[in-house]
């Protein structure tokens, strides 16, 4: 599958906006992403395995709230920073 990386996190991916990873669940996909780009997962997910309050994750066009959500190899995952504030 492909994970779309928001601009705020591209310092981890050498500015790549799309990264191919494998995983049967969102948790596995994020683990694979972090294995390749260490540190990126903790900016997205808390130590309690919750998606951070101002981060949204969509698979295709559906928002996911739980890391246990299953994924297919053909899915496209979008990580979105809910930019707000001044």
């Amino acid at each position: 599958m492909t994970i779309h990386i928001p601009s705020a996190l591209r310092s981890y991916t050498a500015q790549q906006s799309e990264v191919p990873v494998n995983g049967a669940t969102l948790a596995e996909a994020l683990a694979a992403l972090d294995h390749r780009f260490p540190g990126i997962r903790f900016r997205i997910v808390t130590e309690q395995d919750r998606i951070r309050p101002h981060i949204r994750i969509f698979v295709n066009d559906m928002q996911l709230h739980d890391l246990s959500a299953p994924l297919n190899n053909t899915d496209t995952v979008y990580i979105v920073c809910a930019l707000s504030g001044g």
Partner: protein
Amino acid sequence: MKASHAPVSRGAVTLLIGTRKGAFTLKSDQARRTWKVSPPMFLGHIIHHVVADPRDRRTVLMAASTGHLGPTIFRSTNAGKSWTEVTAPPAFAKVPESEKGRAVNHTFWLTPCHANEPNAWYAGTSPQGLFRSDDGGATWKPFSYINDDPQYREWMGSVQDGTPDGPKLHSIIVDPRDPRHLYFAMSGGGVHESVDGGKTFSTLVKGLDVVEGFDPTTVTFHDPHCVRLSPSNPDRLYQQNHCGIYRFDRPSNTWVRIGKNMPKKVGDVGFPMVVHPHNADQAWVFPMDGATVWPRVSPDGKPAAYVTKNAGKSWTRQDKGFPRANAWWTVKRQAMTNDRHEAVGLYVGTTQGEIWASRNEGTTWTCIARHLPEIYSVEAATFGR
């Protein structure tokens, strides 16, 4: 005067500045007369604290977060020329799915450990947590005695009990004579001491006032803003609290409210406190307006430091160089610091993005940088051998 645990330094000073929109450095000439500001580092990141390691004079840690991403720490081993992100920033222990665990929102405070523990650091977080690194800041482990203990969790209160941008663990202090002797403070949650390297802690709140109408024996109600140890006499602590200015002298276990000797029209509310590195009787505060709804600005719009040279028996206003009126800024708890020169340099960073410096222990002040973002922290460093 006793021999100080902070030896006299000379020459150029580097200020490490954390702001709401990134980090900056200000570097002086040898005489501390001219200053040059750096381009922003990590522009857009919220930088709560940037601290240099006095043990190797080249390592620097930077506590960073953004409005949307999780917190992290950046590390430099070449005096800030280049940075890498640490492998495992402070994070609370994972709890079972059925329980509501805590997540670090940001690291607020960084303290290098004792000189005999060259790679060890402590960190304080929001919500309140205590963490330690033994590899120069690359990886961090939580102190379960503080972070998970039911009594401490009760004293920490909830998010609603903390400061507007989150409750904080701060003022982590290591006794320069003994690495096992530690202090830290929580806003809210009081002051705490360990004599066994952090295996256990006890409270140090006797003598401290709390907001009128509340019970001072309840640790939750105590809000220390900034606690400092006297480098020339480690048996003496000073504290700027939500409810006054205090001094603490061993072997007593009671804080004495020395802020009652401040001018009544100014009061003794504020955030930062600085202690003279070579004279335990001398300390500075930067008062703010804590009346009514807590405007948190300089009293009457007239900023000034106040110095005591007799351990708090009396205070003298130091405002030469500061705006005479209509200056509605203040100084946060990590944004006032000193260097260790013989004539001690003082530095304050304002909520309106200015850095003010004094080369003569507060007698006169000069603005050395302006138009920076809101300043959260200022630390003085001397790099190299």
